[in-house]
């Protein structure tokens, strides 16, 4: 592969070490090899031919949250995450994908039918006595590592059915002030249906017409694991699904999806994809910037603290919008936590691959949340919701974890 476009990132690293303080993994492990500066240096050594791909190299490159905190701290904005993604791609080229990931990426992500089936099986598992039986029978304990704890990471599938199967492909309103297409993402579709319903409710209240075309996974899980081929396949499909719609914007409620969708244009290089990408907006951004948001009438007396998802605050550069949105809710008190923009340790499937480490990073987040005394942790990212929600349940904390859109929707509903 030609990585000359990444040479700038390597050349701009002065090895000052300033990023290490920002690297959550270095913070936990304290070893240079597992920190941001080490990853940049090792990738440069690989490119220069001084280092071969190895299992150790794979471990080092896997142990990155792609949280972009190093990049935000670096005076030259060195994009370590791009180097890590390139390294992962190289590793897949040499070693191939691990079997389980191959199955997920090639067979599940590329087909909604199979993904729906998998989600249904999970629902059956959670709803029938099966989960109870498995948890009770200590079956999980016979498996290695932390499978028992990991199993609890998955939130209950709220509605039972994928969100997209319960809604029409077009939801019209009278005299729409805008028309948008909603890319729900897998998390909302399969796990957080209430977020999806809230998005639709909020848009209806604001007289926005919504299209819900067919759609597949955004591709982030594949790309993060070095599977570029699947990523590109999904990008192409999604662009097709959304073409021909007369819309002002494409909305996401997940910043990781949002970032991926925004990169389709550059990745595919077609005009169609570029138009697609130029329309992508986070829901909070759309509500605060593109329309005159209807102010809810009823009082919602809750104290909320907001956690910044990495891919929102450093990826899409969204920091103000969700906070401003929350402040529009009468009675709501927003209380900032320390380190609101620090990674919660979720990072896609990182929390499954490195459960203990992920929980150590999450522990800091939970301390900061607890200190605020807030009733609700709001975060505009389903993956962060899943991670923080898991931490809250495991530690029996009183907080509810919600998407800001859910709060806004509740405020509208309370006024009706």
């Amino acid at each position, binding site marked *: 592969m030609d990585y000359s476009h990444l040479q700038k990132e*390597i*050349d*701009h*690293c*002065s*090895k*000052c*070490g*300033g990023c*290490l*303080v920002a690297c959550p993994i270095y913070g936990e492990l*304290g*070893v*240079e*090899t597992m920190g941001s*500066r*080490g990853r940049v*240096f*090792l990738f440069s*050594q690989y490119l220069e031919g*001084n*280092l071969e791909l*190895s299992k*150790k*190299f794979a471990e*080092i490159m896997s142990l990155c949250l792609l949280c972009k905190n190093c990049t935000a701290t*670096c*005076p*030259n*904005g060195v994009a370590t995450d791009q180097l890590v993604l390139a390294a992962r791609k190289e590793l897949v080229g040499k070693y191939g994908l691990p079997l389980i990931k191959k199955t997920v990426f090639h067979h599940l992500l590329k087909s909604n039918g199979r993904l729906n089936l998998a989600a249904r099986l999970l629902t059956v598992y959670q709803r029938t006595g099966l989960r109870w039986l498995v948890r009770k029978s200590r079956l999980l304990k016979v498996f290695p590592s932390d499978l028992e704890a990991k199993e609890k990471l998955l939130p209950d599938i709220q509605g039972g059915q994928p969100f997209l199967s319960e809604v029409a492909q077009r939801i019209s309103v009278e005299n729409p002030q805008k028309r948008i297409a909603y890319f729900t993402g897998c998390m909302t579709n399969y796990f957080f249906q209430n977020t999806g319903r809230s998005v639709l409710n909020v848009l209806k209240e604001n007289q926005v017409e919504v299209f819900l075309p067919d759609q597949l996974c955004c591709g982030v899980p594949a790309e993060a694991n070095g599977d570029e081929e699947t990523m590109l396949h999904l990008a192409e499909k999604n662009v097709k699904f959304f073409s021909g719609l007369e819309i002002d914007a494409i909305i996401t409620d997940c910043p990781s999806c949002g970032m991926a969708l925004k990169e389709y244009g550059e990745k595919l290089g077609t005009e169609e994809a570029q138009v697609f990408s130029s329309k992508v907006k986070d829901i909070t951004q759309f509500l605060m910037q593109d329309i005159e948001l209807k102010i809810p009438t009823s009082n919602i007396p809750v104290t909320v603290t907001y956690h910044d998802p990495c891919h929102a605050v450093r990826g899409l550069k969204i920091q103000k919008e969700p906070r401003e949105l929350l402040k529009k809710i009468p009675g709501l008190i927003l209380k900032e936590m320390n380190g609101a923009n620090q990674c919660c340790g979720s990072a896609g499937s990182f929390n499954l691959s490195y459960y203990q480490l992920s929980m150590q990073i999450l522990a800091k987040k939970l301390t900061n949340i607890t200190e605020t005394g807030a009733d609700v942790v709001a975060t505009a990212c389903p993956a962060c919701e899943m991670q923080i929600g898991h931490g809250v349940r495991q530690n029996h904390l009183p907080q509810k974890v919600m998407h800001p859109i859910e709060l806004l929707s509740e405020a509208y509903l309370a006024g009706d």
Partner: protein
Amino acid sequence: MSEIIQALTKILGPENIHCSLEDRMCYSYDGTFRTFLPDYIVRPKSTLEIQGLVKLAVANKIPLYPRGAGTGLSGGSVPIKGGIVLDLTRLNQIVEIDVKNLLAVVEPGVVTGDLHKAVEALGLFYPPDPASLKTCTMGGNVAEGAGGPRAIKYGVTRDYVMGLEVVTAAGEIIHLGGRTVKNVAGYDLTRLFVGSEGTLGVITQIIVRLIPKPEAKKTILSMFPKLNGAAETVPQIIARGIIPATLEIMDDLSINCVENHLHMGLSRDSEAVLLIELDGDKEVVEKQAPIIAQICQDNGASEVRVARNDAESEELWKARRAVSAAIVQLNPTKIAEDATVPRTQVPEMIRRLKKIASKYNLLMPIYGHAGDGNLHPNIITDRRNSEEMERVEKAVEEIFKNTVELGGTLSGEHGIGLMKAPFMKLQFTPEELHYFREIKKAFDPHNLLNPGKIFGGEESDGLFTSPKGN
């Protein structure tokens, strides 16, 4: 090989020994561009473990290199002869903050910025503030004799170290200095160890002096169309009887690099920017700020920004903090010098530096601590360009010659390490260097503690022209 690993494992357990190629590569560097692969990296947690490691290394004649966070700018910690890197970052406890005796006891792996926060929460102040303070460690600061912008008013690390615990090459644990303000018993070995760059022993605990935290501060940023205006401003401020907490300068090239990244509205036509911070009692600071602003304006400043609060002050500081890394936008290899001259020679030194840059046709942004004469001319080059690296080597030598000529020193705060070792003879006579060597021999007769540093020798030949380490 495996016998050594077995012995190391006996002391530390397997999880704190690293020797994969990837690990060795990641401990081959510091903040400079030269890299050397170590054979092992060990990460002890206690003085006793360190004692065991030193004894093992000396018994087997393996070189040992103490290392903190690896942010050094002189190659002070790079393992140039292979051997064992002694990573001290796991010794990261603030052992004690003694409010009544105004001192703190810390382990060498404590991050300097963490000590700042801990003592400031108690209304106290530890002034040394190297630019890398959020990452660098106290052990590294003591070993390299780190300084920082606040040196003009508060001095450098050396001025705050009261006592040390050290593991010697013979494997003894010795205690130097102590907890008293006054202490003239015996030779001042504490000060000898500050700036000894890990060549005399391994520092395992540090006692530092603290002072009360100043009540208020005020930050002022001034842009000067002409370098001379900025240069003249510096002595005039001092002449008015004001010693600012910091008095920093950045030249045109530095300003543009910072502006490229931060977009903070610095005038790209300015030949110099001064960043001045006052601290002390609120009334005094409020009184002095307008005087400083006036002096800047009298010397032709095109714009003077005075921060109204901490947030604004932090904004202004961003420019200065970013500069060291921002200048590698120009080229990937940075040779960071810290030649230091008496304060009054700063304007002359800057003139000579500019001349050297143009003579050898090199990019050389200059910034630094104008208030204390400690300038950072940085040659920004590409180590892959051997023809240019030859010019770099000549330019560096000429910088040092001029520094010494103006009554200055090779290093104000980075240490000699590897990168400046070949130039020691420019500053010291053979007799003076002889006494340095004798001291080294007394503490480390087999030359196993951080060998090849300070004194130079064959290891540092072709420092700039040889593209890689071992």
